[in-house]
């Protein structure tokens, strides 16, 4: 009975990741990762630098081929039917991916054409989404004159233009001031509730994950080390906050890749002093 229930639940997941592995030359960046994301939920994918977050997202959005494993989005096999899978999601990448020398409107129009929006709907949809992120007045300005927050809002509007079922956000609020972060999250939360949009995001801001995520998965050294609601993770680790739970689960060591020996020594000494 329980098994039957699990099968049904698994079947209903809008994102399914099964035993996903990515091997780079001498590094297993993602090592047998499995999880599912329920439709209409907000899912946070957390982990220290170099844990395998971005590699996983890249594989989900078809920018990177897995070494092995299965990926499914909205019922479409990402590897076997990339075009259908691509239609099902929108992405906001960690780095800005707009054309600076085009206007906001032109960036949206470009997207409308490469996602085959029907001609009759293009103008109205673009106008509606620009309105949603409060960029109507700036639609004729070149993107290179935009602030970081404006670019992010435009990218979110663009990512939603083809009415995806899933929106991937890779550190969407990185480098933004608290006001803008709040605004951006208000848009996302609103979209999630009104359109049943599934949101998959990564972040280093634990307060964002605590506040907005329905489910969290924590990845470290290429493997999922914990899963659950923010409250569950705190309870499991006996912590007062998600941040503390995160640190308990992934350790207190700094994860700069290629850290030098001298640097490591300095960090060790610092820790001794603190004690």
């Amino acid at each position, binding site marked *: 009975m329980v098994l039957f229930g699990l099968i049904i639940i698994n079947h209903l997941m809008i994102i399914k990741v099964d035993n996903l592995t990515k091997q780079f030359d001498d590094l297993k960046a993602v090592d047998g990762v499995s999880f599912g994301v329920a439709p209409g939920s907000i899912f946070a994918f957390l982990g220290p630098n170099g844990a395998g977050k971005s590699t996983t997202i890249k594989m989900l959005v078809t920018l990177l081929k897995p070494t092995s494993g299965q990926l499914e989005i909205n019922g479409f096999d990402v590897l076997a039917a990339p075009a259908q899978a691509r239609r099902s999601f929108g992405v906001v990448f960690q780095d*800005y*991916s707009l054309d600076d020398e085009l206007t906001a409107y032109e960036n949206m129009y*470009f997207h409308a054409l490469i*996602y085959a929006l029907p001609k009759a709907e293009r103008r109205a949809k673009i106008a509606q989404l620009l309105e949603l992120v409060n960029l109507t007045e700036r639609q004729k300005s070149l993107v290179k004159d935009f602030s970081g927050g404006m670019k992010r809002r435009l990218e979110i509007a663009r990512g939603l233009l083809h009415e995806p079922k899933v929106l991937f956000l890779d550190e969407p609020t990185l480098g933004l001031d608290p006001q803008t972060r709040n605004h951006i999250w208000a848009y996302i939360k609103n979209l999630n509730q009104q359109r049943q949009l599934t949101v998959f995001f990564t972040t280093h801001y634990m307060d964002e994950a605590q506040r907005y995520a329905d489910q969290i998965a924590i990845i470290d050294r290429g493997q999922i080390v914990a899963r659950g609601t923010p409250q569950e993770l705190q309870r499991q680790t006996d912590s007062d906050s998600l941040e503390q739970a995160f640190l308990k689960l992934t350790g207190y060591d700094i994860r700069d890749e290629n850290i030098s020996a001298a640097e490591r020594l300095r960090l060790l000494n610092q820790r001794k002093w603190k004690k």
Partner: protein
Amino acid sequence: MEKINHELAAVYILWLRQIKRHLRSKARLVMSIFQPVLFLVAFGFGFKNVYAQAGQGDYITFLAPGIVAMSVIFSAMFTGTEVISDKQFGFLKETLVAPISRLAIMLGRTLGGASVAMLQGLLVFFIAFLIGFTPVSLGGWLLALMFMFLIALMFTAFGTLLATFFNDMHAFPVIINMIVMPLFFLSGALFPVEDLPAGLSVIVRFNPLSYGVDGVRGGLTGQFHYSISWDFLVLMALVAIILSVGSWLFSRMES
């Protein structure tokens, strides 16, 4: 049918994007015709008398098609830098995650870059007119334009293909120069290819640009060194090969 319309729309918008970017950058527009005009003036007037004394006629008329071809291949190859800057500034991802074929991406970029290169070539042509280029046959104009466009297509596709291998925006122009300069100097752009020393003659024969220059010049002056059909066949075959390899490389590109 719907699928084809979608792919064509993608090609169109990729093309339009490059035209818009180019027209908005006045500096690029002016800079890229500076060198061809310098060549045209310095060589054209410098060798004018020697060429006439050798009984070959008007050198500027001979030279202009070659310089036009040169400005086309420079512009065309340099569009490869846009692929690299798209990689660096992230815009490439926007096209790579889109539900369109990699051939559409390759075609759109190539047509866009080739149109920009055509525009540059036409500007140089216009300047050549101002300083005394006189086409022998006006009827060959369309033929010359077609050959210009084939050169533009071939070298844009080649530059785009090369750019998939590079991530360094500063190294790329150096490499382009290393490729374009020999192609230019060792084609028939500057000198007639009849009665060349054997070694040079072989090199010229294996240089794809020779056929492009011959096509443009043949159209404008009525005199082909090879033949219209041969020039056309060689260029078309190369364009097809480079486009297929390029779209295959795009399908393998990861970031």
